């Protein structure tokens, strides 16, 4: 369980994190979203004590990070996979972390196996690692102490498709065993598939938070039909406002059941009917963070 309360971090001239509060609950994967420079990484750094907050607090299992007697056994952290001594071998990096936590050396081999780094690769120096390999090594470091909480900043970065699938399963499994996962990512599809809860941040402030269902429900329904105009008309008759997109899809804020019922009564055959979450998360993300986007996307 991660609790962030009224967290603020100011730098000379600007506020990177502005009164941020949220909770990442056990047994759930919490996705942490936001545009570049929104304050995601700063918030995560404050959580693990690398940056001091200007005000507010972040606690893990009710305890400030600095108060944890042996943090590696309680919280697995991966903030930047490239932040490793380039002259050390991958194996040695894990061995040093295991030694710090007081774990036996056998744990290192187990973790290398879990993240699919071969013994040969583990003997190479991190200087020669690809981003994906560094990411795997970082995940291995985070999992080493068998923690109950994971804090991961952009862990899918640089992973190949199989790696992304593997990580998704790993995190889902971790949460299903009662663990708490907080993960940030720019890959909205990734977050959409894996996250149970979402926290969206823009310009240092929380712009939305809640369960994925809650947040995406607002995105409504997408329906397709061989006669999209008739469908839109039928919906209008039923008092449901809708928009007819150029690609022939009909979008509405009503839920899919209502739309289906309307189509049935009107005798219109639907070819597709679903929550508009495919584009929903991206749309939601862009509209929520519209004021804070560099590109000034019109949402």
């Amino acid at each position, binding site marked *: 369980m991660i609790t962030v309360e009224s967290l603020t971090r100011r730098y000379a001239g600007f506020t990177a994190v502005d009164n941020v509060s949220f909770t990442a609950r056990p047994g759930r994967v919490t996705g942490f979203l936001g545009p570049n420079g929104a304050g995601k990484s700063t918030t995560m750094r404050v959580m693990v004590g690398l940056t001091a907050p200007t005000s507010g607090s972040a606690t893990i299992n009710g305890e400030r990070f600095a108060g944890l007697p*042996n943090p590696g056994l309680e919280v697995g952290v991966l903030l930047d996979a490239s932040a490793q001594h380039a002259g050390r071998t991958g194996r040695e990096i894990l061995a040093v972390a295991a*030694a*710090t936590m007081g774990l036996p050396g056998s744990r290192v081999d187990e973790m290398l196996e879990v993240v699919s780094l071969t013994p040969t690769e583990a003997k190479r120096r991190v200087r020669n690692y690809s981003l994906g390999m560094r990411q795997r090594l970082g995940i291995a470091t985070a999992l080493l102490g068998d923690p109950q909480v994971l804090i991961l900043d952009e862990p899918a970065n640089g992973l190949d498709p199989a790696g992304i699938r593997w990580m998704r399963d790993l995190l889902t499994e971790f949460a299903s065993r009662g663990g708490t996962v907080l993960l940030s990512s720019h890959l909205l599809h990734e977050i959409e598939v894996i996250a149970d809860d979402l926290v969206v941040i823009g310009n240092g402030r929380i712009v939305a938070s809640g369960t994925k269902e809650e947040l995406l429900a607002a995105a409504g329904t997408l329906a397709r039909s061989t006669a999209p105009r008739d469908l839109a008309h039928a919906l209008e008759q039923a008092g449901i406002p809708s928009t007819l997109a150029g690609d022939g899809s009909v979008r509405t804020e009503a839920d899919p059941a209502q739309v289906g019922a309307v189509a049935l009564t009107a005798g219109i055959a639907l070819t597709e009917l679903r929550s508009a979450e495919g584009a929903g998360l991206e749309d939601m993300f862009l509209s929520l963070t519209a004021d804070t986007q560099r590109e000034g996307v019109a949402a």
Partner: protein
Amino acid sequence: MTATIVPPTTTTKSVPVRRAVRPIPSTRLVKVELRKMFNTRSGFWLLISIGVLSPIAAGSVVIFAPDSDVTYESFARASGFPMSVILPMIAILAVTSEWSQRSGLTTFTLVPSRGRVIGAKAVATLLVGLGSVAVAFAAGALGNVVGSALAGVDTVWNISMPMALQMVLGNLAGMAIGFTLGVLLRASSAAIVGYFVVSFVMPGILLLLASVREWFLDLQPWVDWNYTQVELFEGATNTGEEWAMLASTTMIWIVIPLVVGLFFLRRSEVK
């Protein structure tokens, strides 16, 4: 009548009980920091260079020194010389690599107390210093026995205990300067440049100042770190005043900057 209270059985995901976690002992931190000093490519070669250069330096005495100089002092000094340069570098990198190589992100999330990490690094640095100096004295002793036999002269053991201790102290002071620069600058290249400025450029400037400004002449031994350092390596710190001078330069160049550096290091952001 008895009523049994049946506790509700947890059906859904249960929150795992927090394990009792024991704090990380300081001895473990020292061991880890010692390991980190030598498990990188640069650390490994620095260690090898000590092991290789010391015997070479001692060997060169056998080849080049006149018979009258075939003494324990010559050998110990020669084998100790490479160390006086390499040890401060080891001390610098022990601290700065956490920032320059960014490994601090992991180190300080595994051990949030930065003071403890730096303390463990200081102890590890001290141990490496003592170990290396012991190697230098041993290489010197071996060189002396072999060298005097080859030259056909009597083996001269002319280093007294007080002198030996001062040579040890001199090496440790050099490491302390490197360590201090590391804590203060937190960047490998800056700290190494800083070390060369402090130990090679500054003495010249202070010497020049002393030669043109008479008032500085008396003051120089109290503020010139190299002055007291050379005295230590010569084993010439004997009087109470000389020890006071050493204390003064140590205060100026090590204690005060170290305290200031630690103050900022503990508050800085690790990125």
